């Protein structure tokens, strides 16, 4: 099954994004300049659910969780190296909230699961 989403940014009929702003947004200026059509794959971090536009120009290795055997984002890669880290994929957080037994606080990278009071 295909594991990647896709993003399309169409500036073929638009002045596009100026080079200085494009770099602020994380694009190469050529990708979003006037007349450009930018298409790229997106990947979703298995730990926090963040969607990442796959930079075709990236040369660094992308993080991988060998417990999930899935892609994770750079931020979660840093978080998982912290001494108090608990491995809990985003899908597990979703399942716990959906069970009705927990609510989620904190952030998706550092979720805090709070037990719900019985009704």
């Amino acid at each position: 099954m295909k594991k990647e989403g896709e993003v399309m940014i169409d500036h073929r009929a638009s002045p596009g994004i100026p080079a200085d702003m494009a770099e602020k947004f994380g694009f190469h200026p050529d990708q979003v300049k006037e007349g450009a059509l930018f298409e790229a794959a997106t990947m979703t971090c298995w730990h926090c659910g963040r969607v990442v536009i796959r930079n075709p120009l990236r040369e660094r290795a992308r993080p991988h969780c060998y417990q999930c055997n899935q892609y994770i984002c750079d931020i979660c890669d840093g978080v998982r190296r912290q001494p108090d880290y608990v491995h809990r994929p985003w899908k597990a957080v979703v399942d716990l909230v959906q069970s009705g037994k927990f609510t989620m606080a904190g952030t998706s990278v550092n979720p805090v699961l709070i037990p719900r009071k019985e009704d």
Partner: protein
Amino acid sequence: MAKWSFKSAGLTFTAANAGAAIGSASTYMALKGGSTTQVIDLLEVSISGKATASTVAALELARASTLETTPTALAAPHSAGPMHPATAALAAPPVPFVAAATQPTPSNVVTDAKLNLAMNLFGGIYRWNASPTQQWTIVGNTAPGGESVLWNNLLAGGSSGLADAHFEYEPF
């Protein structure tokens, strides 16, 4: 479950600060879970710029760090409904809105998930599709997982501009 579509028409996405409640109604799109246990898979975001002059907007999809209060029911020309006409009514339908008594607060937490949707609203088109298992997920109806907001980030250098947009999503 069935797929639904939430469409806004003619919104001026006014640039606003992250980490504070958005200042004005009808300047963003937000989608909130219909119950404490509802899961919504956001499958597509599409934006069509309608500005009449060059306008670089720093649009983002972000989680809401503080939820809105009293969302206003959608009214024309905006819409939200199932994409299959035979879809059964949900006991707790998701809550799509563009206005509320107090607007939602887009998260400015560094480690909170965000999706960069920056584009020129003068003729630009942006579309993001998720593949299966790679969707943006909204879970429950409390911050930060229970609500996501499409808005224009002033701190990222966004300028205010007119656009139409839609979300496609699947509630469970």
